[in-house]
Structures are given as C-alpha cells and as structure tokens.
C-alpha cells in the first residue's frame, strides 16, 4: 500500500509570497494515495526535517513529496532525511515550486498556485511509482595502468608511484622514452632533451612501485572503473631478460642492417638491437621480420656470441591479464606523413626532411654526431628553408587543426642551425606565428633578432630540384610578390597526428576520439584529463598536439585524478541505471548503437521453450559503465530496456497527472 506524505514549503516568503501554500497542501489531500499533507515555513530546516520524520512514523508514510525549491538544491537533503527515518532515499520526489513557479510568476498568484498544485500532483504520481534503489559499492583495485612510456606516461607513472600506488607502464617499443628521446634541444630554454629525460627514465625503471612492460601492447580491456581487466601482449623479445647483461656484443656482430626507426632512416641498426644507447631497459630485442635466423633458419651468430646465453629464438608472445583500478592513456602522437604532398616531391627528394629528422641530424648522439650535413651529399647546407604547417591547417590534406608546437620548434631549429653554421641563411615560411607560452614569444624574437632568421609570411607552393639545389617557391604575402629560395636543405615542420591505430585502442578501452583520432576529454574545460569512461584518464599528445611542458602538466593532472580514485578501497555507484527486461528483449541490438559508454552488450540466454532448450540473445547492462542517460530506452521498440527512476511508467504517470 502506497502512503504518500506531501510537505509544502513556504521558503520564508520566497514561495508563500506568490503561491498559496495552504491551498496547495489542502488540494494534495485529494490526490490518490496521499495520506498526509501539510505546509510549513522552512521544510529544509531542522524542525522541518523533524516534521517529515515524525509524519513518516505517525502516518506510516512510505513515499514523500516535498514541494519546495529545485531538487538540484535540496534533493540530497531530503533524501538523507527520509533515509534517517528508515525509508529508501529514492522514495522522495520533489516539486519545484520556487525556481520554476513562485519566482517566475510573482504577478500571477492564482496561476502560480494552480501550477504548484499541478506540479505536486505530478510529483505524487511519480512518487507512487518510485522503487527503492540501492547505491552499490564497487571495490577498487589499487593498481594503475599507464599506456605509453613517453614523457607523459613516465611522469604520470612517477606521480602515481610516489603517491604509493603500484603502476604498470605498457610501452610497445623496446624502450621507454618516446619521442622526447629523439629530440635534441627543447624550447624555449634550449636545454638538452636527453639530459632532462633520461634521469626520469631511470627513476621510472628503478622505482619499486613501477613495473615496465616494454615491447608490449594492449590486447583487450574488459571491466569498468576500479576493475579493468586488461590483457597485455608481451611480444617475444627473443632475449631472456633476466639473463641478458646488456653487454651489446650481439648488436656489434649481427650481420643484418636495416633502417633505424629511432634515427628515422638516417642511420642503420642491426636485426638485434636497442633503439638507442640510453634505452631502458637497455637490453636488445630481435626484429624477427629482418633477422636472418627467423627468415632462413640460419645464422645464429648472436646466440653463439652471447656470453650469458640470453638469446632465445623460441620465445613466444605472452598474454598477461591483470586487474587495474585506473588507466592512464598516454600513447602520444605520430608525425604527419608528408609524402602526400606532391608539390613537395612526394618524399622523393633526399634533402627535404622532417623536423624530427633534423633533430637527429643535429643531435650529438645522432647519425652525424651532431654535424649538420644534408642527407644527399653530406655537404654542409648554407641556405636552409623551414616550412611551417605541413600537414596542419590543411583541409585539403585532411588536417584542419593547428599542430601547436611547430612554430616554436621551427624557431628552435632556425636558431640551432645558425648556432652550428654561422654563415648560413635560414628562411622560415609561416602563415601565422603562434607563441602562446611562457617565454615563447621572446624565444621567437631571439630567433629573428639574435640569430637573423628570415621569416616569410606565405605557404610554399612547390619545391623542385635544380642541379644540386632545391628551388622553393612561395609568395611573400606581405609584399604581394612571388619569391624563390635556392635551398640546400628544406625542413618541413610536419604536424603531430594521432597514432595510426589510435582508434583501435580507443575502441578496445571504450573511449571517444575526434575526427582526427585524438582522444576526447570528458569536458573541454572542466574535465580535460578525464574521459567519458570513468576511471580512464588522458595524458599528453594522444588528446591533441602538445609540447613537453603541457604534456607533463597534463600527465600530473591525470595522475592526480587516478590517485583520487585509487586511494579509496571502494566507490559508490549511482543506482539510476538502465536494466533489461529479458523476457521481452528481442536482442535486436539497437540499444548498443545508442549507448555512448559501451555499457550494453548482448549475452546468450538459455531457456526452455516447449520442452526444448533454446538459446537467444538479450541485451545486458554493465552497471559500472552505465551513466543513466536513458537514450537507449527510447530506441527500444518493445520497451524492454528501462531507466530506473525514470521509467516510461513514471514519466507517463507524470504526464497523466498534469492533465487531471
């Protein structure tokens, strides 16, 4: 038997100044199931709440309607109140007769009172249909997964580890370090990238709370916040990690030479290799695609030479499944492949290089030991052209966004070139200079004033070879004249783009990504490191182009968010989620298409029909993932998926009540 109590609040005169509260309370007495109805000055006050509690006891009320201010204001107050009186908090329903009534209709007293009565009638109709709901708790596994071992991933892992949480870093390359390890100097301070990165790499490797899983990839992510079950593929390294001493003899003697990924094709590496000398872990892997032993079954030199006997050709990929409470995605970026630019030679001209290749060319530990020479004939270039916005701000090439770091790194390159080659000329073709960072504009100023970089406002239309030069043709749009530079070397400031498989990873984890495959934050301003999937956070350039300071800052922010989650043994979940009526669900899967959280899945139901065991598919909701929007319920034709607390029945009851 439903016994409803109605409590009409005056809110001082805020409500009663316009609405005849006594009349409302009186009218409510006639509504179906209403056993008790009263008005009072301040319902939210201590005596007001006492009044409710007492009425519940005295009149055996089991549904409560409070007509007062907005539920966004005091719903929790009254929920707590009835809970203290021994009722389920979801038995409370509120009628907003202040913000939605008295305050907006001060000159329509009669109309406002009539409206308040309607609103209470609606609330009563709904309250009668409210079901008890329980907040449930989910245990939280105190272990974090960081995907990606670049600077963002390392920073996030260190912060979490220092806060006392165990962290696994999964990195698909043989070493952590990421793109920052390839960079020579960093703007705007020009300090050496390796000098500030490698200590952090060492810290991460040595930290008792951090486990490195290099040469590993994410295979599968199941579960939900606090309880992600992640399957990690540890690729066969062909090296026994616990035996290898990292002496490097194997790498010296390996007969196979292939382009080094780390040196971006500017140098060779062996088939057994570490990507770079300061790699962590500093133990090699065998590249099975190129290793003679794996290709032809012969060779085995590394195995023969290894003093520790660490080479193991029989190693297999291993799958490892672990449970994590939180995931930080820090998978970084890739560089735009400029070979789609026919007008820049489709990547055919050896002396047209990318900014990152330039970093290797000018790096003291790079293929030329830091001597700047052009790839084709090893000559020292005198006239160097840098072209900004290659692959960014270019809709025709599919990327409309500004890559955010190129203006600055081009200014850095220009300065570094002039540092190395005093009699060189550097021309930077730019469209707009974007230097919104601390000390950035000053850095750009120095590249012009101190280093004499020539800035030309215009996009280059064509590069073509003439003898041993590259003719670079552009317009100086400030002069309104076509200009040409006879360049020895052209550096393209290519854009940062999402990892080529970013979408696939996002689908595995269940997070969103934008048209450019960068991961989508939960809110661009107020939740910039969260994702729409609770417990998954973003750090670094996987969310959008970012420079090092921004990546590090975001990594620490993501770590702080993850700490907040991991520091509690369990979390409460909102019980307003959807549920499936398996009897009527036809398993058509339309709801799956609608859910933004991938909270719905199909499962197989086995049942007995006319004596026969049959199987059929029905939808099932993961309550840990469902956020209770209810969009799926509308898509369900048979009404087989419903949102608790906002069922069709409840909403229609309100509609009916409004018309009575």
């Amino acid at each position, binding site marked *: 038997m439903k016994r409803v109590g109605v409590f009409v609040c005056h809110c001082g005169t805020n409500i009663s100044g316009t609405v005849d509260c006594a009349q409302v309370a009186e009218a409510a007495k006639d509504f179906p199931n209403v056993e008790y109805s009263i008005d009072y000055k301040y319902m939210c006050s201590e005596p007001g709440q006492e009044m409710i509690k007492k009425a519940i006891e005295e009149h055996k009320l089991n549904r409560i309607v409070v007509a007062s201010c907005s539920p966004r204001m005091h719903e929790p107050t009254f929920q707590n109140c009835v809970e203290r009186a021994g009722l389920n908090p979801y038995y409370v329903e509120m009628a907003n007769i202040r913000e939605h009534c008295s305050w907006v209709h001060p000159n329509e007293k009669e109309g406002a009172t009539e409206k308040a009565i309607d609103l209470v009638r609606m609330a009563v109709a709904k309250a009668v249909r409210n079901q008890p709901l329980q907040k449930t708790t989910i245990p939280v596994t105190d272990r974090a997964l960081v995907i990606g071992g670049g600077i963002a991933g390392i920073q996030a892992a260190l912060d979490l580890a220092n806060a006392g949480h165990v962290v696994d870093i999964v990195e698909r390359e043989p070493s952590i370090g990421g793109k920052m390890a390839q960079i020579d100097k960093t703007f705007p301070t020009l300090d050496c990238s390796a000098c500030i990165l490698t200590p952090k790499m060492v810290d991460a490797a040595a930290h008792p709370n951090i486990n490195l899983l290099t040469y590993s990839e994410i295979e599968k992510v199941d579960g939900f916040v606090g309880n992600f079950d992640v399957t990690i593929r540890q690729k066969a390294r062909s090296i026994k990690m616990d035996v290898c001493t990292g002496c490097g003899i194997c790498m010296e003697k390996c007969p196979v030479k292939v382009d080094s990924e780390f040196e971006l094709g500017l140098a060779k590496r062996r088939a057994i290799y570490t990507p770079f000398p300061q790699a962590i872990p500093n133990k090699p892997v065998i590249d099975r695609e190129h290793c003679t032993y794996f290709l032809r079954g012969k060779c085995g030199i590394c195995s023969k030479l290894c003093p520790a006997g660490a080479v193991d050709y029989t190693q297999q990929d291993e799958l490892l499944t672990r449970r994590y409470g939180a995931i930080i995605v820090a998978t970084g970026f890739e560089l735009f492949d400029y070979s789609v630019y*026919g007008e820049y030679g*489709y990547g*055919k001209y050896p002396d047209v290089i990318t900014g990152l290749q330039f970093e290797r060319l000018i790096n003291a530990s790079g293929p030329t030991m830091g001597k700047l020479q052009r790839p084709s004939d090893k000559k020292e270039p005198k006239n160097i052209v840098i072209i900004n916005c290659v692959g960014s701000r270019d809709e025709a090439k599919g990327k409309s966004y500004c890559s955010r770091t190129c203006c600055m790194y081009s200014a850095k390159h220009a300065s570094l070139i002039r540092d190395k080659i005093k009699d060189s000329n550097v021309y930077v073709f730019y469209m707009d200079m974007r230097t919104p960072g601390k000390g950035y504009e000053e850095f750009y100023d120095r590249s012009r004033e101190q280093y004499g970089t020539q800035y030309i406002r215009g996009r280059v239309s*064509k590069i*073509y*070879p*003439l*003898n041993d030069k590259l003719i670079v043709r552009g317009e100086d749009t400030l002069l309104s004249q076509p200009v040409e530079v006879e360049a020895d070397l052209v550096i393209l400031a290519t854009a940062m783009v999402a990892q080529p498989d970013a979408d696939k990873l996002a689908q595995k984890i269940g997070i969103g990504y934008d048209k450019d495959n960068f991961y989508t934050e939960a809110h661009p301003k107020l939740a910039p490191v969260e994702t729409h999937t609770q417990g998954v956070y973003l750090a670094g350039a996987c969310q959008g182009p970012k420079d090092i300071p921004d990546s590090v800052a975001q990594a620490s922010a993501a770590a702080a968010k993850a700490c907040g989650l991991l520091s509690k043994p369990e979390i409460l979940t909102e019980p307003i989620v959807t549920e499936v009526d398996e009897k009527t669900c036809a398993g058509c899967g339309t709801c799956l298409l609608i859910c933004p959280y991938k909270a719905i899945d199909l499962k197989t139901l086995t049942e007995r029909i006319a004596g026969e065991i049959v199987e059929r598919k029905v939808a099932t909701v993961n309550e840990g993932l469902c956020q209770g929007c209810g969009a799926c319920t509308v898509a369900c034709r048979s009404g087989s998926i419903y949102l608790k607390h906002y069922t069709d029945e409840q909403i229609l009851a309100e509609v009916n009540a409004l018309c009575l």
Partner: protein
Amino acid sequence: MKYAYYPGCSLSSTGIEYDMSTREIAKVLGIELWEIPEWNCCGASSAHLTDHLLALALPARNLAIAEEAGLDVAIPCAACYARSKATEVAVNESEEMKKTIQEVIERKYEGKSKARALLEIIGESVQGDHIKERIHILLTGLKAACYYGCLLVRPASTAFDDPEDPQSMDQLLHLFGAETVDWSYKTECCGASHETSAKPEIGISILQKIFIAAQNAGANCLVTACPLCMNNLDMRQIEVEKYFSTKYNLPVFYFTELVGLALGIEPSKLGLNKHFVDAMPLVQEVLNRKGGEQA
C-alpha cells in the same frame, strides 16, 4: 573496344599529326574510333570565360550524340577533354543542371556517356602481354620529358592521374622502351591554354622554364598529349631560343606519334615530318638502332 571519337578543331588543323597518329595507332591496337558525326567545337576557353551555361552546353551536344550511340568519348585534346569532362560532371552532379542543359541543346544527355582522355584509353589498351607482340621497334635512346600540361589531370577530383606527378604517359613510354626523366614541370602550365600569348613575353618566360627544366633533367625530347601545348612548345621553341639567344633543340612529340613509331608505323603517316623543331634526326636515330634492338 569502340569509342566515339571527338578530334576537336585543333586536330583538323594545327594538331593534324595528333589526329593522324591517333587514328593509325588505334587501328593497330584494335580500338575502333567512330568519329562523332558533325561534331561541334567544345567552346574552349572562349565559351568558358564568357558564359557558364554555354560552356557546358557546347560539349553536351557532342556527348549527347555519343550517348545515343551508346559510346564513351575518346578525346585527344586536353582542353576539349577538360571542357567535356566538366559537362559530364555537371550533369551527373545536378539534376537541375541536367535538365537545363538538355533544354538548351534540345537533345537528351543523361551523363551516361563519359568523356575520356585518349592518354588514359591508350594506356589501358596496352595492358597485358598481347602488346609485346605488337612492338616493332623499342624506342631505346629516347629520353623523354613527359609533359602532361595543366588541363589533363585537373581538377583533382575527376583526374585519372595524379595532379602533381602523373605517371600514365611515363608508364606508357616505358612499355615501348623509351626512358623518361623525373622532372617537376609535368603539370606546370605552358601558357597556351589561354590567350597569354597576346602578351608574348609572358608565354616566352613560362616556356623558357619548361625547356630548361627538361634539359636539366637530361631529356632529349618533350612528349605531350595536348595540341595546344604542342603548338606552344614546338612552334614557339625557336622564338624562345632567339629571345634568349640559346639553343634547346628539344623535339616535341605527341605520345601517339611515339607509340605509332614503336608499333612500326611509317613516320610520315604519323605526321612526324610536320614538326617545327625538326624531329626527324632523333626519329632516324631511333630507327637506325632498329637492327640491334628489335623487340
């Protein structure tokens, strides 16, 4: 394969050798060309620059006749091709435009008959092994700078080859034993597509760049697929040489002439003797190698 053939005005006059060589090689390659009866001028840039509808309607009549015969149209001239393609695209993109054009030309054109560049058609017809048997002479010794011009592969949305670095002509010539050079003026405008020659100094300096680039790339001839380019590159070459007191000596060929040569067709039947920059010495050179290099 059978195609409706649209030679266009140039091919019955300045570009006559293009017409001759096209018809000759088509015979050998088994391509049946049915000349569109009483075809009209495509309107060229004159119509294009005067009235949008006129520019679409003039080629539409030719396409309509071809459509009636159920044939796609083979078009040698890059300019005629560009105009006709524009019509085909416009009709297919908009029902309204289709209706308007049909009303203007007072014929039915549904956009089914496609405008196709001769280069593309020939390129397709030589695919497969059968062509090997047809080759009489390998064009060894030719170092061709393939000059596609600006209209053949633009706009990019409807182009049959890459607008910055097209390959179809290069591949075609490779098949017949010629070398082609990698150069970056393949699709730079020669200035002929429009009346820039009303200001000769403009045309001259554009042409000069093309000749220099071809020379620098090591080419000993230019090859084109457009009678307007041909006119400009061939006839004006001497003029440019005079103007800059230099000598390029780059014979200019239609790709069809070279294909014809390789197929063993007599040079005069291909119109090779009709060039301004004497092409015969180079042709002779190739022919003389015939003994040693016969396919």
